[in-house]
């Protein structure tokens, strides 16, 4: 196999997380990243186990080696035309307003793959 990142898209996703954090670190004074908090939507089509497996590989020999990847799964939020407000739904099988039952395709949350924050240790 030429490159492990190719066959599971989670590996290319964690590589992109590592690159994004390293870019950010370049503009900072020396510090240590203890953890990277990732927000992953219920419909984002990524699997936490595969992300965790890839994390070690992607972080190796970088400033992020030894850091923890924390994956926070976020629920789907649909906008309900009837109730005129966003509503959170459980799971990935239900695309209706939980209050009034109106079907909705207006997804306001649930597809994101986002670096939310970093847990940093400053050396003082």
């Amino acid at each position, binding site marked *: 196999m030429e490159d492990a990142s190719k066959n599971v898209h989670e590996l290319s996703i964690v590589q992109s997380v590592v690159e994004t954090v390293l870019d950010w670190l370049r503009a900072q004074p020396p510090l240590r990243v203890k953890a990277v908090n990732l927000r992953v939507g219920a419909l984002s*089509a990524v699997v936490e186990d595969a992300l965790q497996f890839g994390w070690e590989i992607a972080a190796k020999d970088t400033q992020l080696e030894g850091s923890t990847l924390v994956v926070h799964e976020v629920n789907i939020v649909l906008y309900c035309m009837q109730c005129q407000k966003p509503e959170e739904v459980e799971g990935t099988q239900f695309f209706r307003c939980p209050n009034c039952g109106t079907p909705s395709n207006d997804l306001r949350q649930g597809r994101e793959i986002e670096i939310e924050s970093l847990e940093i240790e400053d050396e003082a």
Partner: protein
Amino acid sequence: MSTTTRIVELRKGVLKKNDELAAGLRKRFFDSGLLAVNLVSSPGTGKTALLERTLRELRERGYRPAALVGDLETDNDARRLAASGAPVRQINTHGICHLEAEMVGKHLEGWTLSDFTHLFIENVGNLVCPSSYDLGEEIRIALLSVTEGEDKPLKYPSIYNSADAMVITKIDLAQACEFDRTAANASIQAIRPGAPTFETSVKTGEGIPAWIDFLVSRSGKSASPTN
């Protein structure tokens, strides 16, 4: 030496680079007046067969479609599709499980997009990975064949929810496969309420005119006589 721990907010999208490239493609497609269509399904659903027929039918009606076709290896599909007379290019991903906006952009080089009325992008056969990658398409079509089972949209909600319309393929085999149309449509509507669904067979031609009408209605350009 003491250490303090703090949290720094970053709020950065991981697929930002792809999203930005896709936004650039979307603008190019819009400015050229063509309708870009991303076809997604599992392997063997019949994306290439549907596309073969679609290219032919659109050309017969005076439209000028083109296609990019993604596969891990081989240019078999591109050669198959080129028989329609439409411009076709193969994208080999060499192991990557989905197409990305960058690959699409690279394979458009040398084409004058304003010459086309439709650009079809046949994704790699995969129901998971392609769902997160925007290719700048105007519409995403998810296919489901009667041999796959009626509950496929429930099993892969991420990709079926991301589609603007569905095409059920190989409907000529429905009876042999004991395919339950009502159940299939119910699972599609549960995952993507209101999605238009076309039941098609490229073999018998069933449902093809309605599918072509849909593509024509979504195109901003009108037909012109072909040479």
